[in-house]
């Protein structure tokens, strides 16, 4: 862990990388739906006002407009909160972006419960599932500032549509530098032999902490940062499952449709092992501080340790 760096939000990395892309490429355009200050697209807006389009509170129009920009040869980055980018504008993302395989980057900030006090209306717990269901759609959930920065820079060259989920809260650094590439999207951050901890987003740092705690209990945990949820890196995931024989997945998302399901699908097809899914248990969120919510919805390091022990106790 790059502990010496002060925690920063992944949405801030989006804003900085978008600005850098704007400097590098004339055909990058950005759209936002009256949340440029929150999603951090505002930095791009300030530097390149002629290439920034604030469509107002109209997410459906924004997504279809982004498709129009892509048809016109631009590389559009369309940002808003995850809950609106996916749920509010699902049909536009489906029909006008995903089906025609247009290179639109749907950049969703404020993913998950850690939106905090705004409560369940603004907490996206199903966005990864919604996006994963769409053919052609690549789904990316980076784990820290640097990985987000690298992912956004890399996205410029990616063919077809992409969903990038970032978060509101400050998150510890895991990568000392922005990686040049996400590769195939499954990074083994810590080798282990007893159980695999497969996590995404803000849960990756908790997985590393859980592995440390498990070590104290003589359990060797392998930690895999799965930053590309779709297409998931089947080889790396299956190899880790085969090596350890059981796993816990962890995500700031419903246990239905997200990383947990994606890993279980790999397991079911290639390496059937016992898997415990740490996530939101098919309920909506509520108001509270991010930390209170993570505690109440069982998304802490301690809960991950507990689930890992439970999985191990039930036998491989």
């Amino acid at each position, binding site marked *: 862990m790059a502990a010496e760096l002060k925690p920063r939000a992944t949405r801030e990395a989006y804003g900085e990388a978008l600005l850098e892309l704007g400097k590098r490429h004339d055909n990058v355009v950005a759209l936002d739906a009256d949340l440029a200050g929150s999603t951090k697209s505002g930095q791009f807006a300030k530097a390149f006002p002629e290439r920034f389009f604030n469509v107002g509170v109209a997410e459906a129009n924004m997504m279809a407009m982004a498709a*129009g*920009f892509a048809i016109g040869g631009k590389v559009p980055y369309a940002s808003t909160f995850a809950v609106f980018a996916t749920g509010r504008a699902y049909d536009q993302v489906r029909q006008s972006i995903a089906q025609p395989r247009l290179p639109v980057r749907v950049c969703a900030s404020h993913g998950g419960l850690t939106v905090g006090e705004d409560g369940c209306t603004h907490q996206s717990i199903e966005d990864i599932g919604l996006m994963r269901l769409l053919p052609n759609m690549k789904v990316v959930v980076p784990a820290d500032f640097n990985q987000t920065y690298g992912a956004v820079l890399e996205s410029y060259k990616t063919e077809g549509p992409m969903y990038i989920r970032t978060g509101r809260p400050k998150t510890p650094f895991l990568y000392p530098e922005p990686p040049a590439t996400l590769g195939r999207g499954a990074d083994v951050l810590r080798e282990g032999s007893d159980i695999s901890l497969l996590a995404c987003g803000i849960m990756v740092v908790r997985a590393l902490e859980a592995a440390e705690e498990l070590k104290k209990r003589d359990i060797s945990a392998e930690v895999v940062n799965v930053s590309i949820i779709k297409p998931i890196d089947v080889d790396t995931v299956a190899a880790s499952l085969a090596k350890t024989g059981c796993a816990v997945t962890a995500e700031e998302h419903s246990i239905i449709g997200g990383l947990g399901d994606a890993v279980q699908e790999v397991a079911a097809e290639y390496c059937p092992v016992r898997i415990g899914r740490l996530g939101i248990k098919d309920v909506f969120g509520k108001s509270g501080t991010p930390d209170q919510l993570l505690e109440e919805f069982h998304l802490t390091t301690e809960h991950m340790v507990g689930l890992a022990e439970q999985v191990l106790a039930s036998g491989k």
Partner: protein
Amino acid sequence: MVTEAGSGHPGGSLSSADIVTALFFHTMNHRPDEPKWPDRDRFILSKGHCAPVLYAALARSGYFPVCDLLNLRKIDCHLQGHPDMNKTRGVEISSGSLGQGLSVSVGMALAMRLDGLPGQIFTLMGDGESQEGEVWEAVMAGAHYKLSNLTAIVDANGLQIDGFTRDVMNVEPLPAKFEAFGWTAKAIDGHDMAQTVEVLDWSRSVDGPVAIIAKTVKGKGVSFMENQAGWHGKAPTVKEAEQAIMELRGEAVPGSETPAEGETVGG
């Protein structure tokens, strides 16, 4: 075409046939042998279910062989039930879920403006389609960005799947609505070719976006289809299709007591 397919949308295709004809064979600068010519005008079919009229115009312009039309909606044919930009030569956007075409057009118009391209975008919508809220988000944006390179044409045939538009959910007065949003709006008779051609040409010269509300007759030119909501999405039988083609050609239909109305007769 629709008879061969066994399904499809003849009503709205016929109501907009005169408009599409005016666009493809008079108004638009386009090169069927170079579909991606950057300086071309763009035709956007937002009401994607009227794919048959788009396909007919593309085929007759030379984008692909006319004989392809008989394979509409068939498993190995590029002519999908609703337009697919990645499958059919000359199709500018994939459409079919109503309400999105004008938004896509706004994005395209802005991209073209950034690149200094001269083309005009002509977006064909339905009056029933205008019930979609997204249409008005796009209308707002078109005015906000002062898109002089955007012309929207509403094929106002007054009918939708479940009946008359005024009964299902009244969208009128459309010209006043567009004007209130900051567009220049003009109502025309969408079957008066001279007027249609004149207004389409004029729309290029207007500062800001233009909405042309074209009053049309659903099922235009086919006596048994005209103004019948039931012909929104139903394929004619072989016999019905034969009669329809004869009527459209202005030929006498055997056994009919009154002369069939030809396509050049106003209505």
